[in-house]
């Protein structure tokens, strides 16, 4: 099981866009899905061409063949009535395929337009159709199909049409959700502003989004339709005169003692067909969601850099660090040869534009890189300890006590299912071993310390009940709760409004001064660096470009890149000239 199975889909977390890549191309690229597709095509072709391929008629009785095993001329033997099993198998797919097609057509025709309309226009149609879908979804399908058979008899097309109706809520919800999501996409707004009619928007923008998930849903629904037909036919509630997989299975079970070989042809055919449908669906789904569990990078001790033991006694020493992500067969290096130091009580800014590797660097110090990332080279020493050599447990303990972290986006960094209080007290109890009441008291103290007016109320609140600024204060309270020696703040104010940003910066400054902790402030905002930091490290595409005292670097940057960045900041010196009337030129 060492070779990567395509079921897991794309291993790398590269953001692929399925709608664009095209359904067929996704499948062709995935060997297992391709094989499944071939199987499905084969099943369809063989079923259609059965009259040409089958050596015997599906109901043709061969004298003396009843319950005979495989023999020359009858590769799969004879069934309970003495019919050639191979011929029946070739013909049997037809009824199932017809039933499956009926199911899918009905499910799609009933579900998709209704869902798209409900998603796009909402209002009363949405309520009514969603209500209907909820009702249909609550019906145990098999039982209703039996009721239908009790009423009208075992006729494949109406029965499977009813099954299509039972499956339609899946398509309805899918279409509805997809359309609802798209409806709020900016590009649909843009299309509307561009003067497109609703019909055209639905056709061009909405349907394109629904198509992919639709095929996925259809492949699983087809599998379900095959299985349901098998079940009904097996129970003797299928059409009697026409060969079908379930009927063959049923015949096989009736004759299991006298002719055990009969079990395999229909059983294997059904299983392979359904599995192929599921595999195709899975391959598509994986490419849509990109949702494969990240596989962990193997823990390989990183290579030591040129100077293995720096005589730097700073609190944090980073040297020659290289971080890589798996990409295709190789590795894509996102941080390379990065080194800097932070002294105790020092505030260092780590600045750079997106893709500069500043956040990756910060996470590597925390030991919180994504599981697929690996530190390939370098050393990280904290307080004299080699962090990269420490065990995960040791690092976890260190995180809870000496190194703390403030994230960028306050709302998404609080667990929505637990109260603020629970989230604050849990580490206090788990890591610092405080009693329940002591943890509570400490948490309330911390909330007050970060400037929350009514700590008790916030303590009892859920994340969705507080504002973004307050959430960031809560996260800061959580970070400083362990009296860390080093605080790593990853763009702590980027998601906030400027006025709130100013308050948070004030808070950080106050806490830093009071506690004398070292701070590594990761940001793209030079203003924030100027406001808070003593030293600055400038990064670009994974490397350190410049490092130095804040005042010095801002006043007199050595590197061109730093100069360029600083000059790009609007400083209000350039003002617009008054409006000059321009005669509009029409090009066409």
């Amino acid at each position, binding site marked *: *099981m060492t070779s990567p199975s395509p079921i897991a889909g794309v291993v790398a977390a590269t953001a692929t866009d399925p709608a664009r890549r095209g359904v067929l191309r996704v499948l062709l690229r995935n060997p297992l899905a391709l094989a499944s597709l071939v199987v499905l095509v084969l099943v369809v072709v063989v079923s259609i061409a059965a009259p040409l391929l089958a050596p015997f008629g599906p109901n043709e009785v061969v004298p003396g063949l009843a319950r005979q095993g495989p023999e020359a001329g009858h590769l799969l033997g004879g069934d309970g009535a003495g019919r050639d099993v191979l011929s029946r198998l070739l013909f049997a797919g037809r009824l199932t395929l017809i039933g499956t097609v009926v199911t899918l057509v009905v499910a799609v025709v009933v579900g998709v337009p209704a869902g798209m309309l409900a998603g796009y226009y909402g209002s009363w149609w949405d309520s009514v159709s969603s209500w209907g879908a909820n009702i249909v979804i609550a019906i145990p399908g098999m039982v209703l199909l039996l009721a239908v058979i009790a009423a009208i008899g075992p006729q494949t097309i109406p029965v499977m049409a009813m099954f299509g109706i039972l499956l339609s809520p899946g398509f309805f919800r899918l279409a509805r959700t997809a359309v609802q999501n798209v409806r709020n996409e900016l590009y649909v707004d843009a299309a509307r502003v561009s003067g497109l009619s609703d019909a055209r928007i639905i056709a061009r923008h909405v349907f394109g989004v629904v198509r992919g998930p639709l095929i996925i849903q259809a492949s699983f629904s087809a599998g379900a339709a095959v299985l349901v037909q098998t079940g009904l036919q097996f129970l003797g509630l299928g059409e009697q005169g026409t060969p079908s997989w379930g009927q063959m299975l049923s015949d096989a079970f009736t004759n299991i003692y006298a002719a055990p070989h009969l079990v395999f042809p229909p059983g294997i055919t059904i299983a392979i067909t359904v599995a192929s449908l599921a595999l195709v669906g899975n391959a598509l789904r994986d490419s849509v969601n990109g949702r494969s569990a990240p596989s962990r990078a193997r823990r390989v001790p990183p290579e030591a850099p040129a100077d293995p033991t720096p005589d730097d006694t700073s609190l944090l020493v980073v040297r020659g660090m290289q971080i890589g992500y798996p990409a295709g067969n190789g590795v894509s290096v996102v941080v390379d040869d990065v080194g800097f130091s932070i002294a105790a009580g020092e505030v260092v800014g780590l600045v750079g534009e997106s893709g500069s590797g500043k956040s990756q660097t910060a996470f590597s110090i925390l030991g919180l890189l994504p599981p697929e990332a690996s530190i390939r080279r370098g050393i990280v020493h904290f307080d004299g300890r080699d962090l990269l050599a420490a065990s995960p447990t040791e690092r976890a303990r260190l995180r809870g*006590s000496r190194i703390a972290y403030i994230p960028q986006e306050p709302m998404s960094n609080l667990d929505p299912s637990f109260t603020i209080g629970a989230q604050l007290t849990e580490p206090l109890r788990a*890591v610092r071993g405080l009693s329940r009441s002591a943890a509570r008291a400490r948490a309330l103290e911390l909330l007050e310390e970060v400037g929350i007016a009514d700590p008790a109320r916030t303590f009892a609140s859920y994340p969705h009940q507080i504002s973004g600024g307050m959430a960031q204060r809560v996260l800061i309270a959580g970070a400083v709760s362990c009296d860390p020696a080093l605080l790593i703040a990853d763009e702590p104010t980027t998601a906030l409004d400027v006025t709130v940003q100013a308050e948070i910066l004030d808070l950080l400054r106050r806490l830093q001064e009071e506690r004398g902790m070292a701070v590594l402030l990761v940001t793209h905002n030079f203003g924030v660096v100027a406001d808070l930091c003593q030293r600055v490290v400038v990064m670009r595409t994974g490397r350190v470009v410049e490092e130095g005292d804040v005042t010095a670097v801002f006043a007199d940057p050595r590197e061109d890149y730093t100069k360029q960045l600083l000059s790009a900041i609007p400083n209000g010196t350039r003002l617009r000239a008054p409006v000059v009337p321009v005669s509009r030129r029409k090009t066409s």
Partner: protein
Amino acid sequence: MLTYLVRRLLAGVVMVWVIATATFFLLNANGTNVARTLLGENATDEQIAAKLAELGLDRDIFTRYVDWLQHAIRGDLGSSWLTFQPVTDALLDRLPVTLSLAVAAVVVTGVVSVLLGVFAAYRGGWIDRAVQIVGIAGFAMPGVWLALILVLAFAITLGWFPATGYVPFARSADGWALALVLPVTAISVSSVASTAQQVRGAMIDTLSQDYVRTLRSRGLPERSIVLKHALRNAAPAGLTVLSLEFISLLGSTVVIERIFALPGIGSMVLDATVGGDSPQVIGVVVMMVLVVVVVNLAIDLLNGWLNPKVRVA
């Protein structure tokens, strides 16, 4: 919360009514000549007419519907055309079997799929792929096949579990549990397969959330992060899938009860279908939808309790 409960309850009642009505008209629209089936092949026309009158089938469909509904509201679903037993009694006789089966299967599905899904999502790599392959296999394998293999291996060859039959819990808890092992396994596999996939997906989503990283940065043990925080947030998605699986498990009982000779609602509806026993079929549909409504309500409440946004509001 109370108004929410009442609203859901009302919606459930309406749902049962709509489905029951639809089924009633479906099954009564083209009248099977049930009297012939009942009286046997040598019955005269007069006897048949008398029987129809006795069963109330000589009245028009709307009168019958109103009559049926009035009784149904009081819990009287009429009597079987074939066995004469009151449908409600028959259902209540058989409900424990089917509920034992479906509830046990849902519990097994819930536990196993959470374990598999969490493990696959958290560990990734080959475990993840193995879980996915098992998922595909579980989905594709016809349930009757699996039942055959289980009976062969564990009942006939090893003799560990009975091949057939049901033992009421009240008579013997051991016997009850032993009798359920094979059928529950047979129907759980496909729902475990699909539910584990859903749990896995939800867990991967949750584990990639920002707050998980933040929790890690607080030095919390992995166990607490995965099992307390991530699982809690993935639970609503899992529960929704589980409620759908419960519905399909109820359907699966039709086949499995036949194979394992379990005297439940599934085998009852199959007999009723074959015999054209409309009151039984309608009764089973009503009962199953009722069970589904109750289970959905329970899951809604659980979801509400899990989701603070609903709970607080």
